[in-house]
């Protein structure tokens, strides 16, 4: 296992060291003292394992394609933004805009997520063990957004085909967001997903999959119709 000590190094030096180790054949890299620096491990295109032994700042793991990143602290704004594939797991909390414009792959947050979780996500899976803030799932297009705790206001506003599951309370649904019953077999699949991504000790403190609320788009905003002008007035 290769190690990089972030103490005293700039973000650019840390990221260059990660890339150098990958080029030299390392597949398991630990960054000590990440110090909540921004842009750590962005745009890593290899299937390597990167462990940040502490907190990350903004945009951690963004634009990645294949890496498996473990953040052993909290993460700032734009975690895994536009990630194409791979996994990012945050042991602490995530800042605003986590998994924004996610293309594919998996984002797991053991703590809470702040505002705008998974906005405009275009695929992939987002699993938050705690609560999420204001306007999660806004304009999300594809993929799955799972929040085991409570969801903030304007949840799942103006979505396309993203499917959301919430284990706790929803402060308010966004425009065109509707509760929907689960299909046969769906709660079993949700259970499997939760078990696959959350550590057993954390999973057992969360609701059973069958008790989650499912939220999807009501499809009222998918096509413009002048007769539905009032819906549009409210949405815009």
């Amino acid at each position, binding site marked *: 296992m290769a190690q990089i000590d972030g103490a005293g190094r700039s973000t650019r030096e840390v990221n260059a060291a990660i890339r150098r180790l990958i080029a030299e054949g390392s597949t398991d890299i630990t960054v000590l003292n990440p*110090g909540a620096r921004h842009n750590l491990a962005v745009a890593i295109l290899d299937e390597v394992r990167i462990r940040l032994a502490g907190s990350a700042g*903004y945009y951690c793991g963004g634009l990645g394609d294949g890496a498996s990143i473990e953040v052993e602290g*909290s993460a700032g704004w734009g975690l895994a933004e536009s990630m194409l594939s791979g996994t990012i797991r945050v042991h602490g909390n995530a800042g*605003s805009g986590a998994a924004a414009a996610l293309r594919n792959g998996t984002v797991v947050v053991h703590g809470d997520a*702040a505002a705008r979780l998974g906005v405009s996500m275009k695929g992939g899976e987002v699993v938050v063990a705690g609560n999420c*803030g204001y306007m999660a799932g806004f304009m999300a297009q594809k993929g799955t957004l799972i929040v085991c705790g409570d969801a*903030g206001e304007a949840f799942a506003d103006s979505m396309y085909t993203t499917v959301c599951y919430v284990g706790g309370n929803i402060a308010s649904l966004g425009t065109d967001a509707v509760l929907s019953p689960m299909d046969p077999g769906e709660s079993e699949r949700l259970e499997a997903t939760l078990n696959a991504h959350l550590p057993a000790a954390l999973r057992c403190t969360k609701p059973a999959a069958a008790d989650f609320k499912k939220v999807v788009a009501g499809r009222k905003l998918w096509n413009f119709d002048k007769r539905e002008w009032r819906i549009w007035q409210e949405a815009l």
Partner: protein
Amino acid sequence: MCGIVGYFDKVGAANQPIGKILLGMLDALACRGPDSAGVALFGIPRPNQLVAQVKVGDNGGSTQRTLEVKTAAQRFGAQEFAQNGAYLRFTFREDDDLEPFISSIESIGADVEVVSVGRRLEIVKQVGSPSRLEQSFGISRFYGGHGIGHTRLSTESVVDLSHSQPFWGHGYPDLAIVHNGHITNYHQLRRRYQEHGVRFYTENDSEVIAIFVADKLRQGITLRAALESMITELDGSFSCLVATDSALAFVKDRFSFKPLLYTETAGFVAVATEEIAIRGAILGEYDVREAQAKEMQVWHR
């Protein structure tokens, strides 16, 4: 952009190296705003005495000007004068009504401004990055219980000492605020206060927040209730820290436009625009989380 920071010692011994901690936090955020930087520090109170920081003039003030301010201040029992650049610092007799003191000092010149008054509060701010704060004022030698700081990227109003943050709740002792964001109904609020005779010193939208909170506290409303009313009465984006002689508080707007992260341990509370500021200044293990939209927290000693 702008960066804001706050630190609050929960034990309350008032002997923390508060200047050094805030400086460390601000340094990490210098790239968010190099235009100006400042801190509001809450030191050790002395019985029946207030401490004032007065700007004696835009260019540091002439010797004659400084003398005039000193003479005016002496009528209020001022002593222990110390001049540092544009600032004259002194202590004076505690009084419930600060108005005679303020008008007496500020009538000396249009560019004379009482920057802060309090039993504990001292505000120093200046043009330039946070590192210059240390060069000019040696704030790392300041000990106290809590404080807030700001590093500014100007978007609307000019860059000078008065437009820098923190802002004092002018006329209300021991009240200071720092703000990251943009208040869009600023002119409306400002006009409302001006109609009631409030003087504004700058074109900075953040100044109205300090006036807003001071106004609420004067009405006898609690700090928590004052922050709650900010969420409904202020329009626009704000992550805002408010400090009084015994409390540190923050409030975030209803859309969570601007970042604000905080940590609370048994011993202290630290708040900053980016986690890097907290990790850089305070070693040890603690959890950091981002505040949610409309979230507020008040820590009292």
